[in-house]
């Protein structure tokens, strides 16, 4: 039997109150793409963090090419020619792309910036990323930051590449490109571990699949030898049937528009034009999907709508009222709710309690506040009801938000937007990194809101999500509306609009 290039034996790891991994065995053969499949919280990221030296296992051993090794830090892992692309980015916001890449690779005391920049450009071109090595991380969107992570991992001489949910921010076309690139790497003899909770991807790309559930290995299978349904059962332990009943509206033009955006021009953090004359109208009970690859103005659009970003030119009207450049609090009072993307970066206050997190966009509500004071006791019941309604798992509403898992944090953000009956909801990438059940819950909630005649702007880089939920889709490309789709739309049509040049 051929020795696997990586063998992890009897790996266990526990965190306070939780056993993340329980005697897990995992092996990777040379020249294979191996998917690590499981729901959120199954332990996939933890296992790979151990392989990459970011965590120490409580028990267990790791063998590389048959030799026992101790991986004490990512620098050790990199010396063993392991590279990792993280799900939650490990980037220093205030430094540039070039500096971040240099941080993880250059060992000499003096960094040759030009050399690093050249290599970054080399890798970027090979895989079709368009990232300016001199831009600062905090100025990039989520999708762009992810591309930086991939560049970082590919920078050195890697034999083994670990990717943690890399496609959560890529379009189908980019995903295909990534898969193509991975297959090329595999054929050249590299070995790849691909963490995902997406079944289709695992079946599509991998040679073997290891399924994890609640910290234990459920089985190792070949995609050709198993059905999708059986895989689901392995991942989840039960059959999950996801059906979304959607009543497609055929453009109810008779109502008063909820939102009217006219020729909006907005700058990004770097002072460059992010939205270049965007116009659209949203009617009550309509889900308007805003599709597009990250970095084409989506975040700036959402922030302009909620009053968190200056509008340079153009107008925004909500319920007929001109709210261009008005204060966020006034816009919220009109009945607008915002569920931001990247919940950890923009949404959650980690050390404040669940109750305070629910309150932070709602404390002007006269139900629980007076002129300068907040009535926490009258909010308590509202909070408890929300926890129940959205099934947020937490021991109490006083628990600091940082102890909640990803899925529960997202539910928290959604619950926050539901304290008041909103008239317009802006959601951005609400289901990234969520497991099957949580995604279904988010989608159900959106449909429920739509049925209540709430206008919804759904910004998402998940094309399937947009197509499934939207009544109309507009594509944002380089700050302009590059495509307008009504009714049934094919994924390929929308994807094409996302990637071809926008009309002038």
């Amino acid at each position: 039997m051929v020795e696997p290039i990586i063998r992890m034996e009897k790996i266990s790891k526990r965190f306070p109150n939780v056993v993340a991994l329980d005697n897990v065995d995992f092996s990777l053969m040379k020249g294979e793409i191996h998917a690590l499949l499981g729901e959120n919280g199954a332990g996939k990221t933890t296992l790979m963090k151990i392989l990459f030296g970011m965590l120490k296992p409580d028990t267990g051993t790791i063998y590389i090419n048959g030799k026992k090794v101790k991986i004490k830090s990512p620098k050790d892992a990199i010396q063993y020619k392991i590279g990792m692309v993280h799900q939650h980015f490990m980037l220093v916001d205030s430094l540039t792309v070039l500096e971040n890449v240099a941080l993880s690779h250059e060992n000499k005391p003096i960094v040759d910036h030009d050399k690093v920049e050249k290599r970054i450009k080399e890798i970027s071109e090979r895989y079709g990323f368009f990232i300016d090595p001199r831009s600062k991380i905090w100025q990039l969107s989520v999708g762009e930051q992810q591309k930086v992570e991939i560049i970082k991992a590919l920078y050195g001489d890697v034999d083994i590449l670990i990717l943690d949910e890399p496609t959560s921010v890529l379009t189908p076309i980019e995903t295909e490109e990534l898969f193509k690139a991975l297959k090329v790497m595999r054929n050249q003899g590299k070995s790849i571990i691909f963490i995902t909770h997406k079944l289709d991807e695992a079946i599509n790309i991998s040679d073997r699949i290891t399924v994890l559930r609640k910290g234990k290995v459920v089985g190792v299978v070949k995609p050709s030898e198993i059905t999708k349904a059986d895989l689901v059962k392995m991942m989840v332990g039960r059959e999950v049937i996801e059906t979304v009943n959607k009543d497609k509206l055929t453009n109810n033009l008779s109502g008063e528009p909820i939102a009217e955006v006219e020729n909006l021009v907005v700058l990004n953090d770097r002072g460059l034009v992010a939205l270049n004359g965007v116009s659209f109208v949203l009617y009550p009970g309509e889900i308007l999907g805003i599709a597009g690859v990250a970095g084409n103005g989506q975040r700036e659009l959402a922030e302009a709508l909620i009053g968190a970003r200056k509008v340079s030119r153009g107008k925004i009207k909500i319920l007929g009222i001109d709210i261009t450049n008005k204060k966020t609090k006034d816009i919220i009072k009109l009945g607008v709710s915002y569920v931001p993307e990247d919940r950890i970066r923009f949404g959650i206050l980690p050390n404040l309690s669940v109750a305070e997190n629910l309150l932070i966009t709602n404390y002007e509500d006269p139900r629980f506040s007076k002129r300068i004071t907040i009535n926490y006791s009258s909010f308590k019941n509202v909070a408890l009801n929300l926890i129940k309604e959205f099934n947020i798992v937490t021991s109490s509403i006083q628990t600091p938000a940082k102890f909640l898992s990803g899925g529960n944090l997202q539910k928290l953000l959604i619950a926050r937007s539901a304290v008041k009956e909103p008239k317009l909801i802006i959601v951005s990438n609400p289901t990234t990194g969520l497991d099957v059940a949580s995604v279904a819950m988010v989608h159900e909630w959106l449909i429920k809101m739509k049925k209540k005649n709430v206008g919804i702007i759904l910004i998402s880089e998940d094309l399937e999500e947009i197509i499934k939920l939207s009544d109309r889709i507009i594509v944002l490309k380089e700050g302009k509306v590059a495509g307008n789709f009504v009714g049934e739309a094919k994924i390929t049509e929308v994807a094409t609009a996302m990637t071809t040049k926008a009309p002038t």
Partner: protein
Amino acid sequence: MKVILEKRAQVSKYELVAVRVASIVLALFSVGLLFIFSGIDPFYAYSVILAGVFGNAYGISEVIVKAIPIGLCALGLSVAYTAKVLNIGSDGQLIMGAIFATWIALFSNVPPALILPSMFLAGFIGGLAWAAIPAFLRSKYNVNEVIVSLMMNYISLKVLDYLLYGPWRGHGVFNYPITDEFPMFARLPLIPGTRIHYPTLILLILLTFLILFIMNRTKFGLEIKAMGDNLEAARISGIDIFRNSLIVMLISGGLAGIAGVGEVAGIQYRLIRNISPGYGYSAIIPAWIGGFNPIIVLVASLFVSSLFVGGNVAKVSLGLSYGLVNVFNGVILLFLISSEYLVGYRVRIEWM
């Protein structure tokens, strides 16, 4: 045997207190070693210090005397630190408060009946105005407030020097750089037998409860807590970052200014060069440890001030050098701060 550090999921109040008490005990033990090296019996030394500080009314009153300025500064700082506005300029703001109050006492035409309230108001404004400069630079131009407020401490010392060596130098003081004494109606009353200027003490207690109210019950309190926790999320929720950063900085400056008034009007009865032996800096630790909770800030301020007094007792009664006093304070604070790490992590020992 393996020693494993595990992150704690929840920290119980008991664990919180236990870790801190243990660290203080360890610190006292280490300082005891220092005493031994100085040729003094540590038990004797501690008994003398404890007796000096807590064993008599005068010692306790001195602890309170020093806790007033430290507590006022720390209270103000805790508000700023909650919003993660890192004001390091309390000392300079205290000095400015003292300067403004001195002007009222010696060089203004305020009628005697109104002079004490005017001094407090002036001191508050002085400290606030001094803090306004780093505050504005931070809010408008994103200039680092740590550096500006720190450097302005030195500027305030030079302003003080200018005034004391120059236009405000007193008459008949043999050319010492000090002002004239304040007239009797510009001096704060004391608790008899002590140096405690009680109006300032009352102000401190009232302000503690005011800040407690602000933190726990008001919208502003929630807003600044949010700012300190995740600035981006706070911004997106519509919190006025500009306004709030300005306000917390001004509050912390104003309170330091009041501390300055207490020192000139309650302790020295004149303006001198050493009006603050570093109270503004000492206040940083209690403010940081206290976090959102003004009561803890106050208790921590009492602790820091008793370190001050204990150090003085050690110097006077044991003949220890002044340097050793600083070592004493420093070691205790070092242990306390380092132990903060263990509050978040549990030590597990595995016997293999």
